[in-house]
Each structure stands twice: as C-alpha cells, then as structure tokens.
C-alpha cells in the first residue's frame, strides 16, 4: 500500500478484518500447540460469553460499571471544568495551586485504594472516588491550557466590542478553549474506564472488574476472565467513538484539524 494513494473502499475493511482474523488464529493455535489447560481458546471464550449472557449477570455488571464511570466522570467534569477555567483565567492562582496539582497528578488512582477505603469503606463510594481522581486531573489540566492558549486577539476583540470580563469568559474564552477541553474530557473518560475495572476488583462486588476477579477466584474460569476482558475493550472503544462524535459539532470542529 502506498501512503499517497487513497485506499480503495474494500481495502478499508479488508485489511483490518484480516489482521483481526490473524490475531484470533495466532491466539487459537498458540493455545492448541502449547496444550495449555489454563488459558482459554477464542472458541471457549465465546462459549463463556454466551454462558454469561444466559445467566443474565452480564448486563447488570455492564450497567454497574457504566453507572460508576458516569457518576465519577460527571462529577470530575462538573468540578474540574469550572476550576480549570478559573485557574486558566487567573494565572496567578494557577501558579499558587500548580505545585500541589503537579505532585498529586502523577499518583495512580490505584495507589489511593487504601486511602479510599479509609475514607469511604469498602463499597461504591470508594470506587467512585478512585475513578473521580483518575478523571479529574486531565480535565483541569486541559481547561487551564485551553484558556491560556486562547489567542490574545480574541480577548482583545471581546474587549473592543465592549464585553465585560464575565462576558469575555463566556462568549470568547470558553468557546475558544472548548476543543482542548473536549480533548481533555476524552482522555479523562478513557482513564475513568481503565480505573473502574481496577476499583471494582477491590472495593465492590459487581461490575466488569469484579467479573474478572470473581471468575478467577471462584473456580479459575479463565474463559470468563478473558471474555470479560474483551468486553471491557469493546465497551471502552464504543465510549471513545461515541465521545468523538462531539468533535463533529460545527462550533468545535475548527479545533480538531480535520476540517474539510
């Protein structure tokens, strides 16, 4: 394939499907050739998935995981966007808060698990707190950089047309920063989906993360473990693709470099 020539329509689907098929074949034959009794083959995983669906536990777990992500991500956005906009708008405040933020930011939410359990006990709240931590910082950072990167001539135009500072924030700075804020939200959603699995392994007894760890602990059902893993991957992909639809809204599309 030449990078300069546009791929033909069938090629756009053919090659990815081929790679997928090769991956499954490699997986299948690795299991067959190594004669492992522990790791499941793709077919066993498929049977495991069907079994989970029949027992009606799967939907409950999916909904629980999604619910936790929705609450934590929503709270992180609700808190992180105003705080990030404020810090971006007042660079002096940002300089004061930044050192603390920069120390807290690289701490994996996993490291917070013991602390979360002290604060909230074992349960939903601890899990939600952990996911919130994972999602909060990328949102704040994106808002700060979004606001501070708004070209000064947009703000100047706002002042020139007689807007008050609050109006400049609402009508100029926020829309100008929105593409970057959306990028931050998208990263945060991805992290939230990573953290929910880890949190559910420790703090609660439902959700896809719990399904993974429970399938291993109660009878070493590795077919169910891998089935749950694949589901986590597919749902994560759907969430990301869904969120990317927002980039197509016309008032933000200019910021994504894929305008026609």
């Amino acid at each position, binding site marked *: 394939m030449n990078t300069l020539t546009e791929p033909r329509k069938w090629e756009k689907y053919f090659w990815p499907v081929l790679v997928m098929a090769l991956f499954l074949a490699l997986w299948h034959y690795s299991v067959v050739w190594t004669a492992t009794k522990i790791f499941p083959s793709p077919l066993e995983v498929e049977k495991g998935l069907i079994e989970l669906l029949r027992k009606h536990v799967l939907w409950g777990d999916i909904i629980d995981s999604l619910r936790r992500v929705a609450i934590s991500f929503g709270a992180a956005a609700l808190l992180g966007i105003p705080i990030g906009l404020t810090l971006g708008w007042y660079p002096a405040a940002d300089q004061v808060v930044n050192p603390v933020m920069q120390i807290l930011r690289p701490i994996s939410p996993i490291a917070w698990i013991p602390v979360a359990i002290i604060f909230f006990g074992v349960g939903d709240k601890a899990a939600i707190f952990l996911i919130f931590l994972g999602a909060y910082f990328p949102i704040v950072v994106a808002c700060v950089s979004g606001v501070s990167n708004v070209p000064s*001539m947009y703000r100047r135009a706002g002042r020139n047309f*007689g807007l008050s500072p609050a109006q400049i924030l609402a*009508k*100029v700075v926020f829309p100008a920063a929105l593409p970057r804020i959306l990028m931050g939200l998208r990263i945060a959603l991805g992290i939230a989906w990573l953290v929910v699995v880890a949190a559910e392994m420790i703090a609660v007894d439902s959700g896809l993360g719990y399904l993974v760890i429970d399938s291993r602990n109660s009878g070493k059902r590795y077919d169910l473990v891998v089935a749950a893993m694949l589901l986590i991957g597919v749902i994560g992909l759907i969430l990301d693709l869904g969120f990317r639809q927002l980039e197509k809204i016309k*008032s933000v599309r*200019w910021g994504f470099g894929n305008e026609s």
Partner: protein
Amino acid sequence: MSSTEAMTVPTVTGTKLRAEHVSMTFKRDGKSTPVLDDINLDVQDGEFICLVGPSGCGKSTLLNTMAGFLSPTSGAVRIDGEVVQRPDPRRIFVFQERGVFPWLTVEGNIGFGLFRLPRVEQKQRIAHYVKMVGLEGFEEAYPSELSGGMKQRLEVARALAVNPDMLFLDEPFGALDSITRLVMRGELLRIWEAERKTIIFVTHDIDEAVQLADRVVVLSARPATIQQIVNIDIAHPRDISSARYLELRDGILQQIGLAHKV
C-alpha cells in the same frame, strides 16, 4: 470663539483624532526601548489615513495606542476631545483575517458586537452587512469554510455592524495573495465611501497607502517620529499609472530611503 475653546472642543474644527506629543517607551529586563517619539497628528472626521514606515518602526504600537489597547508613556490621544484610555465599541480594531471567531458562523461573527440591540435590529444589521461585504449565501458558513479574502471581509463586516465612527486596520490585507489584496482595496474604498468612517490604516506597502489614503503619514525608523505627511490629491478611482500617482509614490519611497529600482 476664542482659540482655547477650539483646542478643548476639537469637533468644532472637524478634528476626529488628535495625537498630542505621544511618546512610548517599552521597558523589559531593565532595558528601556523608545518606540514612539513625540508624535503629533490631527486626523479629520471621515478621513482615510495610512501609516507607513520601515518594518518594526512602531506603526502598530502607534495604532494600538490610538485604539486604547496601549497607554502612551507620555502625551495623550484624544478622540472627539476625550482622552483615549481603553478600547471602545465606537472604534473597532481590525486584525488580519485570523481575528474572526472560528466557533461562530458568518452571521454569528457579524452579530457578535450587537448583543445590546433588540433581536429584530440585530437581524437587520446582520443582513445589511452580509450583503455589503458580499457574503450572501454564506450566512450559515463557518470561517474554516471561507477563503482568506472572505474571512477578511467578514472581519470588516463584524467591525462595521456595531456602527463605529472609526476603524483601525493593522495590515489587514498582509496575509492575502496579491490579487485578493487588490480586490479588497477596492472593496474597502467602496465601503468607506458609503459609510464615511474615519479610517487609520497601517501598512508597509507604499502602493497600498497611495492607492487608499487621503493622507499618508510616513514614520521614521525606531523610535518613530513623523517624517512627512503626504497629501494624496488624486480623486478616486485612482489611475495607478498616472504621472501624479507615480510622483507621489516615488516621493514616499525616497523619503523612506528606498531606491525605486529593483
């Protein structure tokens, strides 16, 4: 009328803008750089002034001072007799075409400064200026869907829509290709003749200045002083191969110290 009265009420004499001993010094890292040195200039109501000068001489600084985005270190700029202290919707600063808001449509951009007006009047003004700058059919388009020249016309329309009495233009056509630039000059003159705003236009293009202005203000290298003010006594539309045009242009080129042979 006494002479002091005429000084304090310059509108009587038709003076729109008066720069009085405007000097500007930038201080940075303990080093001070003088940029403007004792600029004195009177601009008449409805006049089209071009500021030209070598690049980096402080033309933009002077324009920003007149528009109220910068305060002079000493001296003052008066508009209608009042000292300019901050930007004002009665005088709009137009940047290169990158100044339009990419998140708003053509209509949204033109209507941006009209938030204090009733909705019906907003609609009328938007429709009027869409037509004036020839963007009919693009009302719902976003700037990313427009060409450079269309974006520049959009920014001029956004400025005109608030019915300012002055426009400050900072090398507005600098980023456009030479054909579009010629078309835009014609458009700007047409709009200026229709609306008679006072225009102060910064350019480094001597031809552009002689084609557009009533008077060309020639600035020296930094710190900028007014070297010469050239009256362009040719009626519009100007014949750019006429002897008078060439004489005026060559005079300015000589003033700046450029030979007129490439």
